[in-house]
């Protein structure tokens, strides 16, 4: 039965997945074990994405199916099971001057599915707000999204602000979004720039040594 659920999820057969999860819950199966099967399916979907067999549209669909599954499972999960084991903490936002949030939201969904605790600051986030949140929650990683070139200076200003607050050495900084690449990362003083959510999550996992 675990395999049937796993396969249905990997093949993104939404109706089948939800039906199987509901049947399992009704027959008294452990909700935590069902959630673990689904998380493994998400990891497999990420692998298929890395191999270019799946694309962003499949990641979005898998995120939606996972959300629906968790709606069914959450009332049955107890205590720490609701949160799951967190592997790292990340503060994330789209930089000042830029209001795009599509890629950032996909990244957040992927990070959560992979066990990260995520603090989303939204869009058009000024440097001081990033600094304030980093100070408050002491994350392992700061993620900044930037889609248009107007955000390049904001990236640099945020890194400078972290330096002034003596926080730069305490976090790894990852950049994402259509407007960034290695050259922009070097300009801004970030640690990495990634092309997509899966590459981003892999980089974050390496940093927290998972």
């Amino acid at each position: 039965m675990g395999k049937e659920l796993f396969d249905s999820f990997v093949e993104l057969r939404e109706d089948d997945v939800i039906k199987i999860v509901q049947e399992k819950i009704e027959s008294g199966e452990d909700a935590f074990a069902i959630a673990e099967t689904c998380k493994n399916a998400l990891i497999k979907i990420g692998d298929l994405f890395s191999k270019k067999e799946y694309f962003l549209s499949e990641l979005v669909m898998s995120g939606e199916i996972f959300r629906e599954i968790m709606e069914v499972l959450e009332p049955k999960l107890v205590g720490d099971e609701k949160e799951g084991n967190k592997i790292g903490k990340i503060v994330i936002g789209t930089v000042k001057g830029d209001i795009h949030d599509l890629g950032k939201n996909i990244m957040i969904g992927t990070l959560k599915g992979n066990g990260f605790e995520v603090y989303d600051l939204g869009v058009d986030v000024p440097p001081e707000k990033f600094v304030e949140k980093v100070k408050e929650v002491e994350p392992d990683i700061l993620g900044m999204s930037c889609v248009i070139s107007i955000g390049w200076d904001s990236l640099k200003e945020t890194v400078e602000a972290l330096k002034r607050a003596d926080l730069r050495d305490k976090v790894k900084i990852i950049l994402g979004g259509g407007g960034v690449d290695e050259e922009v990362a070097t300009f801004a003083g970030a640690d990495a720039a990634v092309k997509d959510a899966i590459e981003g999550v892999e980089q974050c996992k390496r940093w927290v040594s998972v």
Partner: protein
Amino acid sequence: MNLETEELYKQRKERIETTTNLKVPDRVPVIFSENEFAWGFANISQLEFMTDNEKMMMAYEKLFKTFQQDAAYFEPYLFDPLFTVIPVPCIIKIPGKDLPEDSPFQLVESEIMTEDDYKYASKKGYFRTLVKLLPKLRPEIPDVQNIFTERITRTVEDMRASSSNRQRFREWGIPLWNGGGMESPFSLLCLMRSYEKFCLDMYRRRDIVKQTVDKFIPEIVRMSLGGVKASGVPRAQIGLHRESSSTFSLKIFEEIALPMIKKLVELISKENVMTILHCDGDWTPNLEYLTELPKGKCILDLDDSTDIFKAKEILGDRMCIAGNLHEPLFAFSTPQKVEDYSKKLIDIVGEGGGFVLKGEPPRESKFENIMAMVNTAKNYGVYKY
């Protein structure tokens, strides 16, 4: 028009036409998108460039006279917050109003069209759906549907202004790269539904998505050809911002986007107009599919996400390719690096003709980097056979 600029205009026009027809011109043509760099270069604000015709034209004149590129990438239109909904059916944030004066206008992608609207859209087409959704798209404009339909019937004046701007381009010796164009039906639907909802639609209601895309095609062709007729330039640009492997799977591409592209090209080329496929995102895995398009009827306009060398290998004998100096290269690099990459493009993609050197310099570009690209085309891009 003086003789010198008239001659330059003819030379440039011919250079582009020879290239887009897959023949070998005297040298590789060079073009770049102007709108991000022109206003700063002319010391005016982005808002002035977008809303003041004289200032916009002054900025274009300075740019063209300085760089002497082979064509204008954009048509000389002012920004119109209402009519921008036609190619970009999204809520927008406007510089000087919602954003700082020097910001570009930005989209807020949200679910403007609901899943229930598909039935209407698939029967009534794009334009009527757009009018239906206008109160959601421009909530700040009271009675927006009536204002929109009234104004659209008075576009003759706007067209006159645009025609006068085009005439001035010509007087400066600058032809237009594209004569008209529109966003593709697939991308329009994606923008109206929002990317995430449109992904879910692919799994939950793919049939009606396909029907709606099909319904939109003739209208989009008519709109694109309308611009071509007004400008007299036989190239129509179709914006393909959401079709690539960066956003949707190859299966979805194969089933919905590819048949749409084929139909668009077929209908546009019936009018002896070439389709510029403006391809955003990574098209590398999609390139093989484009071999199904008719030879010599399209131009592949690529950004740096696609492997342009692979594109040459797969499609070089079928369609002209334009591309692909990337944004950060203009801002953070050196003239030498720009020259090196431009030479590589000219050597490989320019082999045998059918190549336009193109870049998209951002506002932060260094003058000397843009100049390096233009000069490399002019000096190194000369065909010796």
